[in-house]
């Protein structure tokens, strides 16, 4: 139950009337804005059927479809590498060896503070002269993995920390070593609990793959851009591409929500890490402090 439901009494007749009036005004204004935008589009001839027709033809669609395949491929491969590696870094960060711990913490801090595009440029421009010339696909995927391992390590760490300490203690009590209890007892539970946050992280991986445009890897953005060079249908192409991205990401977010709701039904030792960890990845986010 959230706070904002107790902040005001249920509105009386006058309040309800006021709410209805404001709601009407808002709806009218919103419709006005949409009409204005449509009129703007129409006035510059962007709504003409001829400008949208190409997108009903298979060759155009196939061009975009190939881009989408590239996007999904890059996302999947990046996810395949960054999830296990992220878990690994998180475990190292929680290990008992101070050197390993510091190394992992340094990695996370460093790669959470570097922009992905800079790393991609480094792989594109700085490393080939030094003899490290990866294929284009890996020039995109390796930097994405490097950055997302750092982010995912924080998500995993938050999940492991959220697990009841008793799980660790019980594992130690039956004679498991630190690594064994991590592997057999803690991680399986933590991962189940973190499933929503991990699925939500796929959204950001998918968004990162748009940078394939920079390395000329044929993903959706690059293909769309190449398409506009021939057709000059800029608004139309990018609107369609935007809708494709939003649709896929909405599906992923819905999956995350569903997993979150499902996991809340079962009794458990600790609460699930909220989905959308890209806003709150920090495990040390303070619990609200209250005056007692």
């Amino acid at each position, binding site marked *: 139950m*959230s706070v904002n439901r*107790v902040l005001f009494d249920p509105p009386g007749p006058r309040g309800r009337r006021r709410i209805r009036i404001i709601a009407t005004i808002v709806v009218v204004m919103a419709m006005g804005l949409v009409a204005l935008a449509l009129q703007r589009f129409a006035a510059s001839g*962007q709504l003409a059927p001829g400008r949208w027709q190409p997108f009903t033809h298979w060759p155009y669609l196939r061009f975009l479809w190939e881009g989408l395949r590239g996007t999904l491929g890059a996302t999947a491969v990046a996810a395949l590498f960054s999830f296990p590696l992220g878990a690994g870094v998180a475990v190292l960060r929680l290990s008992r060896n101070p050197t390993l711990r510091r190394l992992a913490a340094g990695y996370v801090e460093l790669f959470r*503070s570097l*922009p992905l595009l800079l790393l991609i*440029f480094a792989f594109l421009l700085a490393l080939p002269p030094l003899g490290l010339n990866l294929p284009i696909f890996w020039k995109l995927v390796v930097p994405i993995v490097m950055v997302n391992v750092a982010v995912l390590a924080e998500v995993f760490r938050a999940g492991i920390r959220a697990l009841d300490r008793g799980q660790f203690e019980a594992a130690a009590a039956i004679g498991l070593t630190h690594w064994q209890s991590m592997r057999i007892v803690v991680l399986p539970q933590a991962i189940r609990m973190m499933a929503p946050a991990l699925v939500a992280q796929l959204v950001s991986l998918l968004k990162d793959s*748009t940078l394939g445009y920079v390395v000329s890897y044929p993903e959706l953005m690059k293909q769309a851009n190449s398409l506009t060079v021939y057709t000059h249908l800029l608004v139309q192409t990018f609107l369609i591409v935007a809708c494709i991205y939003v649709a896929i990401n909405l599906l992923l977010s819905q999956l995350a929500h569903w997993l979150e709701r499902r996991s809340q039904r079962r009794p458990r030792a600790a609460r699930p890490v909220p989905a959308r960890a890209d806003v709150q990845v920090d495990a040390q986010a*303070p619990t609200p402090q209250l005056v007692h």
Partner: protein
Amino acid sequence: MNIVLSHFGDLLGGFWVTIELTLLGFAGSVVLGTILAVCRVVPITPLRVIGASYVEFFRNIPLLTLMFLFIFGLPDIGITYSLFASAAICLALSGAAFTCEAIRSGINTVPVGQAEAARAIGLTFTQSLRCVILPQAFRSMVQPLVNVFIGVALSSSLAAAVAVNDLTNRTQQLNLEYAEAVAAFLVAGALYLVLSLGGAGAGAWFERRLAIQR
């Protein structure tokens, strides 16, 4: 190395553009995000729907796609901004969605009992928000807002992909001209590190200041 040193001013100029983009984008997203957060909690359904759809759309669209739409698409319908302004507006638009969620989840971390207690002693809606809920909510908002700030700072590098002359872009140009690759990237990386760690440090300081001393 010499080339990087002699062009250090150039890189610093780019760093300044990055800082400007970050600050403008963050300020814009805080203002817009607050308005959106208010929209999402008032008991007026159309406003809630608008707030929710805004957040869902802008959280899920890749920033690069948004920038392309803004910079290459909008001129076709007769709306043109400068590259820098477009990049800043796009950063603010997408940052606002995340800020809105940070503020909303901050408000939701305050236990319901606090709101009930405030109502029970006869505070009105505004009073209980102003005196009881928000002061407590702010504390748990600092960390998520710092994350938004760092996110905006790092995404501002995408402006380089649409030819804004920021730090990433200048580093890349320096490379194309002189092939002084490694040093230039190290310097640029260090500058970004300064920006995000600076943001995190400021956030931590702010959080300590806001913490209740017991």
